[in-house]
C-alpha cells in the first residue's frame, strides 16, 4: 500500500533507533506524551517500544475522543436511541462504551435501533431511505472529524431533509493539552502532536506549548516510522537546545491547516462555554455544539435529553490514565475487575484507549516477549 508500507520498513526503523539511542544523555530519563489515541494504537500494534532505549518512556495522553465522553452523555445518547421511531447511527468505537445502564450494545438487545456506520454520510443515506424515522448521528471526535459532521449537516440542509440530526460530542484538542500542561502531577520533556487533527487546525495552535511552556512538539504521522522519526526529532531538539513546533507529517499536514474545514465547522457549530471531560473535569471552551441557525439538525434540541451528570464508578482511574499520571497497569482495577470483556471505564473499551491498547497488545513484559520471539 503506497504511503503506508514505506513507513513500516523495519530496516529504517533500526537505523532510526540507533540514532535515537545515540542522542540519549547517559543517566537522563526522557518522557514524551503522545496526545492522540491513534498514536497509542500504532505504538502497541507495531511493537514500537521495542525500538526505544529504556531511558525513553512514552506517556499516553487524553486524545481518545471516545475515552473522554462522560457516562452521562452516553446515557443521553441511549435515551435518544430509545425514543420511538429513532434510528441511532454511530461509529463502531462507541458500541461498547458503558453508560450507567449499559452500552449501545445492550440497548440494541433491548430493542433500540442502533446501527454502525463508517461515515456520517452513510447516516444521511439511512435518513433518506427512512423518511418516517428520525435518524440521529452520534457525532464524536476531535477537530479531525468535526468538519465531516458539519459538512453532513450542510448537505442535509441543502437537501431539505427533515428527519436527520446529530448529537454533537465533538471536543477540541488544545484545551486538553493545556489541561495536561497545567497539571502538577506531570513532568514531560515534549509532545508527539496529533497528526490528523493538525490537518484541520494546522501547526500554529501548538506554538504556545513551545513558547509559553517550553516544551517541544513534533506533529507526527501514524505509521511506525513516522512516530520513530518524530521521537528522533524531539531528541534532536533537546540535544541542540531548541524548543519548537515541527511538522514530521508534512506530506499530509499543511502548516496552516485546512481553511475550508475550519470555515465549515464555524458555519454549523460553536464552542460550548464548558464541557465535562471524563477524568479531566469541566473545561471551558473545549467542545462544540450545533448553532441555533441549524437547530433542526441538533439532536439535543430535537430530543429533550436528561442531561444528568453521572459520576465515574469509584474504582475507575481513567482520569489519571488519560492525564498520563498512571500507566494502564498501575490502575488498581486493570486486568482484574476492568478488562475488555467487562470494562469499567472508557480507557478499556475504546480500541484506542491506553488500557485497551496495552491489554490487547502489550500485556507482556518486554523482556519475556523478546526472549520468546528471538529466532
Amino acid at each position: 500500500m503506497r504511503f503506508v508500507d514505506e513507513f513500516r520498513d523495519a530496516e529504517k526503523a533500526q537505523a532510526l533507533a540507533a540514532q535515537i539511542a545515540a542522542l540519549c544523555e547517559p543517566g537522563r530519563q526522557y518522557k514524551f506524551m503522545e496526545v492522540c489515541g491513534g498514536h497509542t494504537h500504532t505504538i502497541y500494534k507495531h511493537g514500537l517500544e521495542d525500538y526505544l532505549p529504556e531511558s525513553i518512556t512514552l506517556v499516553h495522553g487524553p486524545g481518545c475522543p471516545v475515552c473522554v465522553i462522560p457516562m452521562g452523555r452516553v446515557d443521553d445518547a441511549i435515551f435518544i436511541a430509545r425514543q420511538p421511531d429513532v434510528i441511532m447511527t454511530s461509529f463502531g468505537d462507541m458500541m461498547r462504551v458503558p453508560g450507567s445502564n449499559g452500552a449501545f450494545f445492550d440497548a440494541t438487545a433491548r430493542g433500540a435501533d442502533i446501527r454502525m456506520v463508517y461515515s456520517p454520510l452513510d447516516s444521511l443515506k439511512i435518513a433518506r431511505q427512512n423518511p418516517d424515522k428520525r435518524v440521529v448521528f452520534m457525532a464524536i471526535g476531535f477537530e479531525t472529524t468535526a468538519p465531516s459532521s458539519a459538512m453532513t449537516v450542510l448537505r442535509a440542509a441543502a437537501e431539505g431533509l427533515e428527519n436527520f440530526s446529530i448529537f454533537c460530542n465533538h471536543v477540541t484538542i488544545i484545551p486538553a493539552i493545556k489541561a495536561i500542561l497545567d497539571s502538577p502531577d506531570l513532568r514531560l520533556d515534549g509532545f508527539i502532536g496529533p497528526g490528523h487533527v493538525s490537518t484541520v487546525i494546522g501547526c500554529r495552535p501548538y506554538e504556545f506549548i513551545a513558547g509559553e511552556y517550553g516544551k517541544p512538539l513534533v506533529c507526527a504521522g501514524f505509521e511506525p516510522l513516522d512516530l520513530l522519526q518524530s521521537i528522533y526529532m524531539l531528541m534532536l531538539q533537546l540535544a541542540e537546545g531548541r524548543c519548537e513546533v515541527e511538522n514530521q507529517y508534512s506530506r499530509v499536514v499543511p502548516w496552516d491547516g485546512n481553511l475550508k474545514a475550519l470555515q465549515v465547522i464555524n458555519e454549523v457549530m460553536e464552542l460550548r462555554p464548558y464541557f465535562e471531560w471524563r477524568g479531566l473535569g469541566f473545561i471551558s471552551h473545549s467542545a462544540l455544539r450545533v448553532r441555533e441557525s441549524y437547530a433542526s439538525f441538533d439532536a439535543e434540541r430535537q430530543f429533550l435529553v436528561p442531561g444528568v451528570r453521572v459520576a465515574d464508578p469509584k474504582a475507575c482511574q481513567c482520569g489519571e490514565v488519560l492525564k498520563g499520571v498512571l500507566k494502564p497497569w498501575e490502575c488498581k482495577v486493570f486486568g482484574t475487575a476492568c478488562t475488555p470483556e467487562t470494562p469499567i471505564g472508557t480507557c478499556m473499551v475504546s480500541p484506542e484507549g491506553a488500557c485497551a491498547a496495552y491489554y490487547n497488545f502489550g500485556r507482556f513484559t518486554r523482556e519475556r516477549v523478546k526472549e520468546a520471539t528471538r529466532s
Partner: protein
Amino acid sequence: MTSQSQQYQELSREEQVLQRIEKARARKAKLKEERITLSHGSGGKATQTLIEAVFLEAFANPLLAPLEDGAVLTALGGRLAFTTDSYVVSPLFFPGGDIGDLAVNGTVNDLAVSGARPLWLSAGFILEEGFPVADLERIVGSMAAAAERAGVQIVTGDTKVVQRGKADGCYVNTAGVGVIERPGELGVATARPGDVVIVSGPVGEHGITIMLARGELDIESEVTSDTAPLNGLVERLLDAAPGVRGLRDATRGGVATICNEVARAAGVAVVLEEEAVPVRPDVRGACELLGIDPLYVACEGRLVAVVDGDQVEAAMAALRSHPLGEGAAVIGRVRDDPPGLVLLKTSFGGTRIVDLLVGDPLPRIC
C-alpha cells in the same frame, strides 16, 4: 396380487426405492406459490409438495427418498465423526456463494478437520413466511452442487415456517456424519515446541465479503467469499504428513482465534510472523479502511494445521499441490514459553500479543 405388484415385491429394497422415485418423478410435484406460506410448514400437503418439488428434486438420492424420519445408514465399521452447525448469515447471497454453500461446506469442513471422510448431512430449514420460493430453490441448488463437489449426500431434513418477521428469510442447520479411517487422534492440544503453524491460503476473504455485501459501507471491491469444501485437501495433507497434530477450520474469529485455542489447549506459545500471513491486497485495503485486523476476520475455506516441524516440507508440498492449497504458507512456530499466549512479530520488527477478541471485530473508525 397383480403381476406388477408381484414383480415389485421381488425387487431388492434399493430397487424398490428407485422405482418409487421414478414414479414420484413421473407425477412431478410442482410448487404453485411464489412465496413460502405458513401452510408450507404445517406438515400437511403443502409441506409434502414443498419437500418433493424443492428438496427431493435437488438432493435426490436413495437414502433421502424414503422420506422417513431418519435416514438409515450402514456403518462402515470404525469411528464416526459427528458435527452440527447453524447458518444465519445475512445477506443470504453474496459474491462467491450463498448460505447454501456455507451450510454444506462448513459442516463438511468440520468433519474433514476431525480426520473423517464426510459422508452424510442433514439439512434443517427455518423459513420466514413470505420468503420467495425462487430464493429457496437457489439456495437448495447451491447445496446440491456443493454436496456433489464434496462427495457427500444430504439424506434427511426438516422444514419449519415461522411468521413474517420472526426469521431473517432463511436459517439453515446442517449436521454431518463422517467416518474416520486413519489411526490416531487429531487434536491441537498435542501441539508441542518445534511444531509449525500453516494456513492453507490467504485469510479474511469471507468476513470482508460479508461486511461489504451488507451494503451499508458503500465499498466496492472484487473480494469474494472463499467458501469451499476442504476434505480433498485434508486427505492429501494427511497422506503426505502423518505428523499433523491437529487441524482447524478457520471461521469466526479468524486465524488469531484458532492460534489462541492451540496455545491454550496445549499450554504452549504460538509465535506468528506478520509478514508470513498471506492476505490479498484488496482484503488488506478493506481492513485498513475499516480499521480491522485481518488475523481476526472469518474465512470459510481455509484450514490451519499444526504440524511436526520435521514434516513441514512434506505438508507444504501436499497443500500446494491442491488447487485449494496453492496459497498455503507457514505463518508461525510453537514454543514452550510464554504458555497459553499468541505473540506476533510485526512486519515493523516489534512484537505484540494477539489476544482473543471480546466480540466481533468492529470497524475501528479512529
